[in-house]
């Protein structure tokens, strides 16, 4: 089932002569259990696309549906985001005064869960990514790769069925980067929809489909083999 649907989405920043057309009519769907990677040079609209797909920004024209709901008609966008969408960004934003487990619990506590229940959920998602032993450590006691995994656990906790990742491998070495992708891939295979922005071909290659953005438009995707079309 389609979890995210962008139809003819355009996003213009500013007005008149100085207007920047970040996206110019992009249509894209991500199914449940599908991992889609978006590649493109800086300024091609990758991050704008991700923000629109996650309801962090609204399109100038076109429509965005998440889990069957048209975002234009959703009153409480923040609640929808908290319930359905997990974000992994390059700057991790882990809270330094909280342990790994507390960081992962936080979004669930904001949802109104009792802290005992939130901790159970946090521990189960940490276990899922083999990071149980990190639960009681503070971010500064973790390596870059471990911190990134905790950030992913925080994005996964609860019933979030859409995962948005913007350069989640950052400056990690290739082996640790692979572990991050393995985690995202596993979550995807368990039914989540994952949209990944990356400029690294080796990580984009974990996706079912790779979409190339160029000047705010989709210039190509890997879903229709070119060779056989020739």
């Amino acid at each position, binding site marked *: 089932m389609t979890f995210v649907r962008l139809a003819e989405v355009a996003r213009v920043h500013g007005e008149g002569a100085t207007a920047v057309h970040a996206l110019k009519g992009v249509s894209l769907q991500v199914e449940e259990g599908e991992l889609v990677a978006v590649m493109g040079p800086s300024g091609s609209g990758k991050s704008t696309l991700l923000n629109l797909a996650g309801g962090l920004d609204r399109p100038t024209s076109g429509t965005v549906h998440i889990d069957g709901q048209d975002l234009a008609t959703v009153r409480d966008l923040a609640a929808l985001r908290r319930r359905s969408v997990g974000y992994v960004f390059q700057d991790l934003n882990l809270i330094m005064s909280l342990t790994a487990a507390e960081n992962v619990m936080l979004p669930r506590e904001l949802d109104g869960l009792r802290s005992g229940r939130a901790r159970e959920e946090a521990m189960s998602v940490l276990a899922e990514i083999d990071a149980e032993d990190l639960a009681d450590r503070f971010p500064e006691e973790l390596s870059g790769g471990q911190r990134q995994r905790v950030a992913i656990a925080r994005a996964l906790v609860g019933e979030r069925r859409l995962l948005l990742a913007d350069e989640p491998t950052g400056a990690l070495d290739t082996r640790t980067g692979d572990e991050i992708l*393995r985690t995202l891939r596993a979550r995807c295979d368990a039914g989540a929809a994952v949209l990944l922005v990356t400029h690294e071909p*080796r990580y*984009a290659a*974990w996706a079912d489909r790779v979409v*190339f953005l160029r000047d705010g438009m989709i210039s*190509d995707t*890997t879903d229709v083999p*070119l*060779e056989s079309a020739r």
Partner: protein
Amino acid sequence: MPVRHGLLALLSRGPRHGYQLRAEFEESTGATWPLNIGQVYTTLARLERDGLVEPGESDEQGRVAYTITAAGGEEVARWFGTPVAQTDRPRDELVIKLAMAVAAKSVDVAEVIHRQRTATMRTLQQLTKAKRAAADGVAQRLVLESMIFQAEAEQRWLDHCEAVLKEER
């Protein structure tokens, strides 16, 4: 001569016959470079001629196990101890194609780059799938990684070409 040295390296672990060598070679390289049995026996014959291996008695099924000689052992050690030269690489068709496309001026180079990048990305996706499936063979996984790094380098080079050509215009 990677097959020759590959077989010698396998024999340094103990005597083996031809079919065993072929299976083990393919197992360690993830069947990336399939060997036919004829190739194995020709190579063994040359190794024997050069005094690097010795055939034993044939068993009841007529199979002959080969044993590495002292000279063969030295050759394997020399091989592992010597870096591979970069000079023997074949000419790269893609590089030639792009250079020709740029020189021709009538060709849409951006389109050539764009098509290639999508095709190479598909290759990368297939390699990554194979890597995920090769969970227990470290040697296999590293062979696939080598190909992944090469495909990745090609992607980066294509991005670079596109950026440079955009500036030139």
